């Protein structure tokens, strides 16, 4: 694994299109340890930004902060120009559905005491006033979308494989029509063949719904395959962000081979 070349410094000034997410000098200390040091970056609509770093570099903290699961000490997180950290409860509940997350460990991502169908229906019950039949047909649509079979609905999480759980999680969050998804190492616990399934599915969903991804990983191969830009993070600060030329050439290559 070579060290990432640090040619291009971070800059968004020349980018014209509106930013969906802007993170400005996010910092967080955890008992004298600086987890994040003035982290700034931004994401356009329908873009995938990769976040590369080794374990303990603070990449998960960034993802969790964007989801308001952790509170940074200082900085701003602008979603369409509004600071998430300054919103009141009501405003947050309005933007919540638009910001979603996929987690690293499939075995703890779904409530083990809930059937898969209850987990998938949960966001519908919370946010949409649907009848029982409507929920059912919506669930069927979602299952088809992520490639799960109807018999999976009746099962409990421990009866599914890791890949199937990640599909179920995608079904669960896609129903909210999110604008932005943080994917925190969504495939690092999966086998290579299943990893390809899930990454393909995520890319297909992005095509269909124009969702924006922040893709966190320690696997540069994966990031090169799926990201438009890759940010390199080390010891809590971003060293560089660069365009990922490989994705396009890679995509062409795949098209040729198919």
């Amino acid at each position, binding site marked *: 694994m070579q060290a990432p070349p640090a040619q291009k410094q971070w800059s968004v000034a020349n980018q014209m299109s509106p930013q969906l997410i802007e993170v400005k000098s996010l910092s967080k200390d955890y008992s004298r340890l600086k987890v994040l040091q003035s982290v700034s970056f931004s994401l356009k609509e329908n873009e995938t930004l990769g976040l590369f770093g080794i374990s303990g570099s603070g990449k998960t903290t960034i993802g969790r902060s964007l*989801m308001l*699961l952790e509170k940074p000490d200082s900085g701003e997180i602008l979603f369409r120009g509004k600071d998430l950290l300054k919103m009141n409860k009501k405003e947050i509940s309005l933007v919540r559905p638009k910001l*979603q997350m996929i*987690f690293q460990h499939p075995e703890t991502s779904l409530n083990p005491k809930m059937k898969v169908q209850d987990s998938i229906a*949960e966001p519908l019950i919370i946010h949409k006033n649907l009848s029982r039949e409507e929920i059912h047909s919506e669930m069927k649509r979602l299952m088809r979308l992520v490639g799960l079979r109807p018999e999976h609905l009746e099962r409990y999480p421990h009866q599914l494989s890791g890949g199937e759980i990640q599909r179920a999680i995608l079904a*669960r*969050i896609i129903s909210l029509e999110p604008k932005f998804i943080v994917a925190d190492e969504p495939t690092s616990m999966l086998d290579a063949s299943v990893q390809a399934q899930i990454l393909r599915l995520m890319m297909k969903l992005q095509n269909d719904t124009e969702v924006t991804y922040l893709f966190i990983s320690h696997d540069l191969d994966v990031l090169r395959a799926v990201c438009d830009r890759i940010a390199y993070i080390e010891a809590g600060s971003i060293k560089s962000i660069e365009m990922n030329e490989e994705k396009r050439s890679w995509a062409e290559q795949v098209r040729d081979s198919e």
Partner: protein
Amino acid sequence: MVKIMKSANYFGWHPGPFPQINWAPYHKILTNRTVTVCLMILGVMVMLSFLAPLITPYDPNAIDLKSSLQSPSVDHPLGTDHLGRDVLSRLLYGAKTSFLISLSVVVFALSLGIILGGAAGYFGGLADEILSRVIDIFLSFPGIIFALALIGALGSSVLNLIIALGLVHWASYARLMRGQVLSVKNNDYVSSARVIGASDRRILIKHILPNALAPVIVLATLDMGHVILSAAALSFLGLGIPPSVPEWGSMLNAGKEFMRTAPYLTIFPGLALTITVVLFSLLGDGFREILDPESEVMGLGAA
């Protein structure tokens, strides 16, 4: 459910170096059967104790000095005590006392522990800090000493006994519940629920409680036995239940004076106590196997 989880984990996406499978394949079925059998026996015992007035020909408190200290016979299958009271009748009535006291204490301690421990674990902050200290204090001295002092102060009555033992036991539930909530809270599915916009109430009821309760219920089952023992110990010292109420501990206390002439007065109530507690222990172990195979909860009550 959890049974399948163990092996499914191994052959699913997360194979460890050691398959997490039970070594004895029949072990679990056996304990499940144990649970069934224990529940059945306990059920019969509860029924007998509540139907005691219909079954027993004697009033448990009817003093008949003419027939005092009789050995077991057809009239009195387990003999009579020094006041001529029928031991079998007193044992059956005593069972009711024990069950009711134990159930009240456990329900009282369990509710207090779940609510306080759950809230402390979930919300954290200053309230948690204070409550944790209080729990630590309650757990850092022998409970029975506290119960003794309480009853000494309030006087002996069934209600005071329940209050005293309840206050002794609640802290262990609170601590267990707090720890459970803290560990469950860190799971990704709780974060996930928060991200999809679930309310605190929903997260607590739907996601945290169902996953946190198993060991607490196991502890409660084991404690049923412990509380019976504690209550009996206090009564044995003459500090628990007033002598007019038939109870196993006080029966033992009265019986020990006549150990030489009427050893059955010592043997039968103790046997009843031991059997009941064994049943609750087995039941608790069985529940643990089914609900929460990973952890070993040591319920250390006072006796």
